[in-house]
């Protein structure tokens, strides 16, 4: 036994939310959707469609200037309403208006269906699915020719009010198997399928027998990819590890058979500023106001893409987010006394005290306080020795919430990763 392992260490965070809407899941396409860059993502584009063009769902819209293989595709049948590019043709926003009559784009998948590795890679890059894969360390889209040391397919999500992956994957077993097989072609290492309790979502024979089933605990953060990767196959700059959601893998499986890119993603809309919480299927990059339309209660509120722990205020659904949180924001109270404000503004932030709560917030999987100290001190060597390279911001979001850390640990982690990436010359 490793001394830091406990099977289901974590916390049950009670984030208030509205009662669920009746019915299981419904499809809702918002009138507007947009393609926007991730935080600190620089995408230099060559446009393939002009402003005002009518685009079938899945049709190529733009490709990367530096890597023309990688294509961005239309999230729905739509008119390309506005193209906003910044200096150096960097993506700022591509805005789409829903036009249902535009139909669906058909991809040629014959070569990929035969199992040819280069064709599968080209298909992923040509359909925009490539951008949904996250490569660790550093958490960006994989490089064009990158070969992962392992692939983690996440069919578990323990964030508060996350959609249940079993509901998402209901009836999509065959598609998931096909997607896993195709994904397995891109790596020579193991393919891990992380899932919670219940029947196995894929047999051990999938992905040429290299599939390993990992059972995650039910408490947050056990269902996050970061801790699974840290524990089973740590990522290093020389041996990157990929992470992708099981729904995207099932989409790949369907794409291989039909040639259509399945354009719907399951999203849970929850939070205490709603009259009902919803489980929806919507297009990628959907307008968040559209997703919670008719369900918000009057008053001031904030719409986050992502969970209450790691979400960020946004207009459009984030690239890999499957949660929308609508939260009451208290109106600013009366101004504090100038003396109190002067003291609190000048004050140094409070340090973190090692408690059982902090340990559980990191899943009891690594020496929590040593990691916190390495992050606060900017000690990148100790940070990578402790396996920090497998982690991303979302993995420390729970520790941030629990300890009320300031500065936030997830911010310190990002700074450490950026420093290490710069040193590696990436």
């Amino acid at each position, binding site marked *: 036994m490793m*001394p830091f392992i406990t099977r289901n260490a974590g916390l049950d965070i009670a984030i208030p939310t509205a009662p669920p809407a009746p019915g299981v899941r419904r499809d809702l396409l918002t009138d507007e959707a947009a393609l926007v860059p991730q935080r600190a993502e620089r995408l230099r584009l060559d446009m393939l469609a002009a402003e005002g063009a009518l685009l079938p769902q899945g049709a190529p819209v733009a490709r990367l200037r530096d890597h023309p293989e990688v294509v961005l595709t239309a999230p729905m049948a739509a008119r390309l309403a506005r193209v906003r590019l910044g200096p150096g043709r960097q993506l700022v926003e591509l805005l789409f208006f829903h036009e249902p009559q535009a139909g669906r784009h058909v991809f040629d998948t014959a070569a990929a269906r035969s199992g040819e590795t280069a064709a599968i890679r080209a298909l992923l890059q040509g359909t925009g699915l490539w951008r949904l894969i996250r490569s660790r360390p550093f958490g960006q889209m994989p490089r064009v020719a990158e070969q992962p040391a392992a692939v983690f397919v996440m069919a578990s999500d323990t964030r508060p009010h996350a959609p249940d992956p079993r509901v998402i994957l209901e009836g999509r077993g065959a598609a998931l198997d096909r997607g896993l097989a195709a994904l397995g072609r891109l790596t020579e290492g193991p393919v891990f399928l992380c899932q919670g309790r219940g029947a196995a979502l894929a047999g051990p024979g999938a992905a040429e027998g290299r599939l390993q089933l990992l059972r995650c605990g039910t408490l947050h953060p056990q269902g996050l990819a970061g801790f699974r990767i840290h524990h089973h196959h740590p990522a290093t700059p020389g041996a990157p590890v990929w992470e992708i959601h099981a729904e995207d893998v099932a989409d790949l499986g369907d794409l291989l058979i039909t040639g259509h890119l399945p354009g719907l993603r399951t999203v849970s809309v929850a939070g205490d500023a709603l009259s009902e919480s919803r489980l929806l299927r919507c297009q990628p990059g959907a307008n968040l106001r559209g997703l919670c339309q008719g369900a918000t209660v009057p008053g001031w509120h904030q719409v986050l893409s992502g969970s209450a722990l790691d979400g960020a205020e946004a207009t459009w659904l984030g690239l890999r987010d499957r949660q929308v949180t609508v939260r009451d924001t208290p109106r600013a109270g009366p101004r504090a006394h100038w003396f109190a404000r002067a003291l609190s503004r*000048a004050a*140094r932030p*409070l340090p973190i*005290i090692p408690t*059982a709560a902090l340990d559980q917030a990191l899943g009891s999987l690594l*020496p929590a306080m040593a990691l916190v100290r390495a992050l606060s001190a900017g000690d990148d060597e100790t940070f990578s020795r402790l396996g920090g390279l497998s982690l991303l911001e979302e993995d420390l979001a729970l520790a941030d*919430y629990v300890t009320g850390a300031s500065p936030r640990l997830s911010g310190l982690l990002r700074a450490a990763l950026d420093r290490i990436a710069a040193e590696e010359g990436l």
Partner: protein
Amino acid sequence: MIRGLWDRETVAALLLICLMPLALTWLWYGGIEAAARLALALVISGIWHLIFMLARAQPPSLAGALTALAVAMLAPEELGLARLVLGITFGSVAAELVFGGWGRNVVNPATVTLAFLGFGFPAAPWPELVLPVAWAAIPGAVLGVALGVLPGRILAGAGLAAGAAYAAGQGTWPAGLAPVLPMAGVVLVLLVCDPVASAATRPGRWLNGLLYGALVVLFATKWQGAAPAQIAVSAALFTSLAAPLLDEAAITLWRARRRKHLG
């Protein structure tokens, strides 16, 4: 951003609540004299926290009250006001506040104060605790472990060391150990289990507790003429100094096992 509970001041407040049974029992038996010592320690500790808040914008902490309680309970008696003030000042400032306050210190400020007073003024007699005070430490320790603010592994490690000493003596306590045990228990809860100044990894905490227990047994059996409080405080000081080393050893061990496990 939403925030949870477990920031520094929550932990300090919970620790203070956990130590309440101990403090109240001690005040009950100590009477007006104990209350005066506690008040003095609280005032001096509070003044230094205030000075550091105004001079260096360092937020004051409830942990200052924890330090004051430990010093009032365990400081040598008949020191006089000036020496007590000097000792508390030295401990609070040099062991805690100059590092940036509770949470950034290396050694518990109360331990430093007590060691400073004990070794600086060896003629002053160490205090004795009545037995009910030691019993009162137990519910506090249980509450602290249940809330996760006191490291249970340190308590268990120290208990293990005591058990080993008991077994080595074939069912009796080694000579000199029995009278030290109540004081060693109180010091364990008050000083050694301080979450900041003790080891923070799991194996490190076991080692931390074991080391404290072993040092208490060693001092009790080999250190002629030492008072129980002197023995326990010295053991607490050495343990606290060794804590980073224990953590380092635990992390090295963890990494070695991880390498083996991951191939």
